[in-house]
């Protein structure tokens, strides 16, 4: 038996546990870490089963190269030379920006940093991004502008110190279970819970107030709540005067949203809005928890700004039990952003447009001419590929065929590329379109760090030998860089890579493998003596004063009409994870949810003569998929909800590729759809 302490590979909560392997080197279970500050000996169902997929027989075990249209087994040497050679060739032929790189929120900080370095230092392009574009790009843009830092302001332990928790657009017990459970406990201890979400999620059963506003009307709801707060004199005048700016401009916009107007836009009552405003504003310590319900809209950044406004208006920053807390969806989506796997910033959110910053990185990396204009995002890169402007794409651990909006558009984009390289742990619909596929190791087979939603940088540790011929992503990236002619990416271990990260990234300046130890360090941690920062914006905001944002409500891009009379919203469910590659290969998790499904309100189902568990067709202007109807009162009439985990009923065949103008995040939460029984 061997037990290795590591960090969970699923959501962003960052639970620590032990992977247990037997004498034959097979993973046989998970043991909780009783001492871990977040897990405290507890895990969710995915955590308890996180070992299951690692040694699944479907693992990619050797490289594949496309020959005569078919992917066939190949040697590493040939595969790596093909990748480096083809990328260099396309760079020479079409220019630096004809290539894009997708890093991954599933891989480690070190690997994201290297992907970013490979794109910028070796191929001289800022076309590097990752799936944060699909989840919290709105947060990174919105909160960074308002406060100077685009991350969760508080720590997970703060949840139980709140007197009021506003959960808006987060199904917390399912998607961040060990944060959701703290909300459950806080409510038991007397905290007031407001849930603003039109699905009847578990937390709604425990909420004092459940507001079921129409999808995509969050700005109107929050503006109306703030209208009430100002009208009733419940705002924190001292905080506004001392710590914020642009209040008057903001107030004028909010004035236009009396609760009656908000109620009419949101489809709720004015009384509910008034009640929510009072409960939130009158609490001593009020916390906002939000997630994809806020961010995945064409007005996602405005939604985020509204959350930020509400907390500033009431002075809920910089102490335990308060703040604006975006819950990051993936194990290392926070870290992938921190590492600069984004088209506009280097690690630590240092802008590529800043000449002094570029100079710093040029010196550190021993290169010249780092590109100075922001590159393509995940979403816009696929648009560029579809238009024939982007020629090559190098993807590490992402599956855009399943995760990005409008699958037919994504397929067209990927098929249009001259060269596509993908490294992953399983075959996916994306690897099926690649020219070269490399087998990567999973998180259980390598060392490194993940950064959780509360900015906690934690270790992952090698628990078992690599499966087949798989190699860690960081080693693969180093070899590609070397073959492409760059000598500045030679490392013996991820520890060395993190040391380099610390040397060029102020917020990670004091973070090393040694200092992370068993339980991690929360950034900002600028130097080796710094103990980390559990709560941001204490005393003053990172940028100095907080900036109020005056935002007006804008409707979603595609609203229901006669042809497509339903609103379709997509998301995750408890037992599965993202594109299903791991959870659908875990016995218990897959058994719990075996089929693609669509939630339909019972009144709609009755009218449409659709029974529970009956197979139905859901269609939008993009396509049609089959799914099992799940008839209940979870969604309100007129709304459909589909998870996006199932290849055989991919919700992203249906979603719309409409983007927030600033964050370039797609509108996964609202598009117009139709539903009918299958013949």
């Amino acid at each position, binding site marked *: 038996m061997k037990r290795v302490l590591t960090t969970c590979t699923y959501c962003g909560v960052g639970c620590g546990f032990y992977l247990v392997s037997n004498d034959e080197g097979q993973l046989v279970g998970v043991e*909780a870490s009783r001492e871990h500050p977040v897990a405290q*000996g*507890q895990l969710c169902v995915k955590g*308890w089963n996180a070992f299951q997929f690692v040694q699944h027989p479907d693992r990619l075990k050797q490289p594949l190269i496309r020959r005569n249209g078919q992917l066939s087994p190949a040697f590493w040497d040939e595969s790596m030379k093909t990748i480096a050679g083809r990328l260099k060739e396309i760079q020479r032929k079409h220019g630096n920006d004809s290539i894009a790189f997708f890093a991954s929120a599933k891989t480690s900080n070190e690997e994201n940093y290297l992907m970013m370095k490979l794109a910028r230092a070796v191929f001289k392009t800022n076309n590097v991004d990752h799936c944060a574009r699909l989840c919290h790009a709105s947060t990174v843009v919105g909160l960074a502008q308002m406060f100077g830092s685009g991350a969760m302001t508080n720590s997970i332990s703060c949840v139980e110190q709140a007197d009021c928790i506003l959960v808006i657009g987060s199904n917390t017990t399912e998607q961040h279970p060990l944060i959701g*459970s703290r909300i459950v406990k806080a409510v038991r201890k007397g905290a007031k819970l407001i849930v603003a979400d039109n699905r009847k999620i578990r937390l709604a059963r425990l909420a004092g107030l459940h507001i079921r506003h129409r999808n995509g009307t969050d700005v109107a709801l929050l503006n109306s709540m703030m209208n009430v707060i100002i009208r009733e004199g419940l705002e924190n005048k001292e905080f506004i005067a001392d710590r914020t700016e642009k209040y008057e401009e903001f107030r004028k916009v909010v004035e236009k949203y009396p609760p009656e107007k908000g109620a009419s836009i949101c489809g709720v009552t004015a009384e509910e809005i008034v009640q929510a405003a009072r409960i939130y504003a009158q609490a001593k310590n009020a916390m906002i928890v939000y997630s994809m319900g806020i961010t995945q809209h064409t007005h996602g950044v405005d939604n985020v700004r509204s959350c930020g406004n509400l907390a500033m208006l009431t002075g809920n920053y910089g102490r335990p039990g308060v703040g604006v807390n975006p819950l990051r969806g993936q194990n290392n989506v926070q870290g992938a952003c921190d590492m600069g796997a984004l088209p506009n910033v280097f690690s630590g959110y240092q802008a590529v447009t800043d000449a002094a910053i570029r100079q710093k990185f040029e010196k550190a990396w021993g290169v010249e001419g780092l590109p100075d204009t922001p590159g393509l995002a995940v979403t816009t890169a696929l648009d560029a590929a579809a238009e024939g402007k982007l020629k090559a794409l190098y993807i590490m651990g992402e599956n855009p065929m399943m995760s990005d909006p409008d699958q037919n558009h994504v397929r067209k984009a990927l098929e249009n590329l001259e060269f596509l390289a993908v490294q992953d742990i399983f075959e996916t619909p994306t690897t099926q379109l690649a020219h070269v596929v490399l087998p990567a190791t999973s998180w259980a087979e390598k060392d490194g760090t993940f950064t959780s939603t509360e900015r906690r940088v934690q270790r992952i540790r090698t628990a078992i030998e690599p499966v087949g011929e798989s190699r860690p992503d960081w080693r693969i990236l180093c070899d590609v860089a070397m073959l492409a002619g760059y000598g500045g990416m030679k490392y013996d271990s991820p520890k060395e890579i993190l040391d380099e990260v610390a040397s060029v990234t102020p917020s990670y300046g004091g973070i090393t493998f040694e200092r992370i130890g068993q339980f991690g360090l929360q950034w900002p941690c600028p130097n080796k003596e710094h103990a980390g920062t559990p709560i941001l914006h204490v005393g003053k905001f990172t940028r100095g004063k907080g900036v109020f944002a005056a935002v007006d409500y804008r409707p979603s891009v595609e609203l229901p009409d006669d042809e497509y009379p339903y609103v379709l919203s997509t998301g995750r469910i408890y037992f599965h994870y993202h594109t299903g590659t791991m959870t659908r290969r875990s016995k218990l998790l897959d058994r719990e949810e075996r089929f693609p499904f669509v939630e339909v309100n019972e009144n709609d189902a009755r009218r449409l003569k659709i029974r529970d568990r009956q197979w139905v067709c859901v269609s939008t202007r993009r396509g049609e998929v089959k799914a099992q109807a799940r008839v209940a009162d979870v969604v309100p009439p007129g709304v459909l909800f589909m998870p996006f985990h199932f290849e055989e009923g991919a919700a992203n065949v249906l979603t719309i590729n409409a983007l927030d103008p600033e964050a370039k995040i797609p509108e996964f939460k609202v598009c117009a759809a139709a539903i009918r029984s299958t013949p």
Partner: protein
Amino acid sequence: MKAYDETDLALSFQALGADYDVRVPILLSDGTRSLGRLEEGKMALAGGKLGAKPTSVFFPQMDLVFQQKGTNVRMQAPPSKPLMVVGLTAQDADCLAFLDRFFSTNFKDDLYRQKRMNSAVVVLSGKCGRDGEMLRLSSGNCDLELVFDGDRYLALAHSQTGKAMAEKMKGGLETDEISLGRLQRESKALPDDELKLLQRASSLLLDNKVPEDFWVDISNRCIACTACNLACPTCNCFDVFDWKCGDSCVNRYRLWDSCQLDGFMREASGHNPMGTEALRTRRRIHHKLAADVIRWGQMGCFLCGRCDEVCPTGIGIKAVSREMVEKYG
């Protein structure tokens, strides 16, 4: 009777390693105590019950049942040496006895029995709980018991196996039984409030005095993490699955399952006798406190407290029993 210090015990366990695959409480890297081999970490006998399901030594979370190659089926081989498990508490030993009976009655579980057969179980009791807290002495349903008096461990053999083990132990000082008598009295004087609470809750369930609404309320707080089952030393449900291991080769594994999951009892038709969260929450408690009483004549919970510790929302069996008794008497 002999009393041993930790150095004696480490040497003794090493010596017994000639006959057994010895597992003792060790300190993992973050301070968690767990069962492991002596060479895998610093021995940490004191500190109370271990966090993980202690019966997992004999019934691991995932276990190979057999391998089929062509027409040839090879069952999992028995362990090369019998297991010797040190560090169960008296409650854990009760749980193990419960599990032994379950896996040997009617359905005989070969995989469990081949690990359990010839194994040796050593209970730790006395003043070796967390911060020196007194742990109940066993009822004798183990092979050897090490009773900590605050200074040394008094070795009590409860079986022939235990006697043979005691003879092979190293070092130790001969001691009288005065100290043991004192510890036995202290053990008997330990409060039994929790047991009474559990018995009261059991009666309420057997008398059908707990309405469905109660279970709806509890289930609203359940996030279906399944930890209550995975940590419980008497929970024994598993599912099986097959993985290909090459051309015409299949490995069949079993894996801990949980009655808190919708798929646990769902039938192929889609019908599910435990189709609501409330029914599943009720089942977990009802099974331990009522169904087991009817079937085995004793409750299936021995108050180890693990489900209460691992439950993220505070609805372990003790907490639910307390709430039940507060509401319905």
